[in-house]
């Protein structure tokens, strides 16, 4: 009978579950005194339950973390600081500083990178090919992109089909846009790092695209629910959308036509890199764990041991460890290869990891979305909307 029982908690698909259970089995077969109880849920339910469990002091030992939430949990002391284990139980030196620091909050390591990820321009290749367009490259500027999108709409000439989704409410793309202008979303001390002017420029750009019918109308975009199945590309309403590189597989599954990924447009000459590499997800360990050391060992098994890594494969993203990545590369399928290639390509074009977002960042994301909709539906003027965004964001930040 196992003396050490650990609970592991993650979201994701059946594929992920299968692989994770397999990896766990490998681990427990070798460590007979350990048992791992795996719990898996879909994304939406995952966070409610996690919050409840953490709040009830009954958090699972191993928690799959998202970049969006790690700050919230880490700053509130819910997660274990990995630093004491670094180099001992946790051997992830070969991740490189960037990939490791992606799991740092306020200079402490709370999450171990499970895979590298970046924003992408997601394109319906079949449509682009058919209409004679090329997917954006690292050279494409926002202006060219807008032009191309308008062209696509015109060329496709199908009612209800447009060049691109309306991304004016997408936070990652807005962030990239700000970074390209030399700004950011937040400063290191948790203040707003963009101005109403930046926001205005962003909204204005999208507004022009809307006028030009380059992007989908607001009532179509309004149905986007941050999920693959509601993406205008999946629904056949646009040729291009924005996403994250690890979502390529998911997109392809729901699309009959061939989809692909490309870099985000840039600001053109004098622009700064907007994209950055961030972890697709991370392993965290609960601060409440009774067996933190064992938990960290398991984390290590997943990200640094060849067997563990082999078991989970690329399903959670491209491993940060070069060693592991090299070992896994041969078994990649086409989509996996495309992803890995993209990450490699982008490594040269990305900027530094932004400072960790402050508390309230999640709420500001929803404000961005709402303001963008208000503008799109003509409820407020662009300048007004930009001011509103900044004002509300400031308010949220000051509330903490």
């Amino acid at each position, binding site marked *: 009978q196992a003396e050490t029982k650990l609970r592991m908690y993650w979201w*994701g698909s059946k594929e992920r579950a299968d692989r994770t259970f397999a990896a766990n089995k490998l681990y427990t077969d070798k460590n007979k005194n350990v048992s791992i109880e795996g719990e898996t849920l879909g994304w939406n339910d995952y966070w409610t339950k996690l919050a409840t469990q953490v709040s009830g002091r009954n958090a699972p030992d191993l928690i799959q973390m998202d970049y969006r939430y790690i700050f919230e949990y880490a700053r509130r002391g819910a997660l274990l600081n990995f630093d004491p284990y670094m180099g001992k139980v946790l051997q992830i030196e070969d991740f490189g500083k960037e990939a490791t620091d992606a799991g740092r909050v306020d200079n402490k390591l709370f999450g171990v990178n499970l895979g590298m990820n970046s924003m992408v321009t997601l394109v319906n290749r079949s449509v682009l090919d058919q209409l004679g367009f090329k997917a954006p490259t690292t050279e494409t500027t926002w202006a060219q992109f807008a032009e191309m999108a308008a062209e696509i709409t015109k060329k496709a000439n199908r009612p209800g089909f447009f060049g691109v989704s309306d991304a004016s409410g997408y936070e990652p793309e807005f962030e990239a846009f700000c970074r390209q202008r030399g700004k950011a979303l937040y400063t290191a001390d948790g203040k707003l790092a963009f101005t109403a002017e930046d926001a205005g420029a962003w909204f204005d750009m999208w507004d022009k695209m809307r006028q030009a019918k380059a992007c989908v109308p607001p009532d179509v975009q309004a149905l986007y629910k941050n999920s693959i199945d509601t993406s205008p590309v999946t629904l056949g309403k646009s040729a291009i959308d924005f996403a994250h590189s690890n979502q390529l597989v998911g997109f392809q599954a729901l699309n009959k036509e061939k989809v692909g990924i490309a870099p985000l447009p840039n600001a053109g000459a004098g622009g700064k890199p907007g994209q950055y590499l961030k972890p697709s997800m991370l392993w965290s360990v609960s601060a409440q764990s009774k067996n933190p050391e064992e938990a960290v060992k398991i984390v290590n098994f997943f990200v640094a041991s060849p067997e563990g890594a082999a078991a989970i494969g690329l399903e959670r993203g491209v491993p940060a460890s070069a060693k592991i990545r090299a070992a896994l590369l041969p078994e990649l399928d086409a989509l996996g290869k495309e992803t890995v290639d993209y990450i490699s390509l982008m490594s040269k074009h990305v900027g530094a990891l932004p400072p960790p977002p402050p508390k309230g960042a999640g709420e500001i994301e929803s404000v961005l979305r709402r303001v963008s909709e208000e503008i799109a539906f003509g409820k407020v003027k662009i300048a007004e909307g930009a001011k509103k965004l900044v004002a509300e964001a400031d308010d949220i930040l000051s509330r903490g």
Partner: protein
Amino acid sequence: MKSDAAAHVPGTPRRGAFGSLATHAVLIGVSLVMVYPLLWMIASSLKPDSEIFNSASIFPAHPNLSAYARGWYGLKVSFGKFFTNSAVIAVLAVIGNVMSCSLAAYAFARLRFRGRNFWFAIMLGTLMLPYHVTLIPQYVLFLNLGWVDTFLPLVVPKFLAADAFFIFLMVQFFRGIPRELDEAAIMDGCGPWRIYWKIMLPLAVPALATAAVFSFIWTWDDFFAPLIYLNDMESYTFQVGLRTFVDSSGQSDWSGLFAMSVVGLVPIFVMFIFFQRLLIDGIATTGMKR
């Protein structure tokens, strides 16, 4: 059911063939609107995922049943297990709700005691608080009781009449039962327990059946409580199992989800058909002069 013939009010002319045809036509029309989503779900379960979202036609181009097998065995634990778990919980919930709520309802409807109005107000009040805010305190409570990751948090509250909806429902129905029957039973030497058991319950069969149907269906359909309280996949309910299919951030097995959704409808639909037979003619008021 004898309903068809018997429910015809004697002496009223049977509606002309045309009239009833028209009624049926309307009803069938409405039925279509009602059934459409089910048809769509079934159709979707027969499509590959890539066809579900961007195909305009409801009919699958190449219907294929593989999603059912894939869905059923799709997770580490098969849906058979989830099915059993859900069934156990739902059946216990039905028993618990019908028993405990009818007891409380009887007290509210028929007994006069100090504090009745106060407790009745409290009972209604429990309907009003959104469960999200009591979730955490309740979670802590169940955790301290050692009930988390068992069926107890899902079942025990039903035996403690936590669902005020059913209490209120039964109160309304009990109040419709003539008091003279209680009085007759009192004269026959019955105490309140026997009146409750021998008079109220049999006469409130339609209400009890309604409560039973709803208990079963709602418990079956509930995902939030099992989601929160059950950790071990072996103990997942059907709905929680379904939820693990969909992960909006990444790859999901949509046709498997729809296939299992369809399968999950079967027991509640059967239960509904079964229980609705108990929605028989009210018998509460014959046998006396009024």
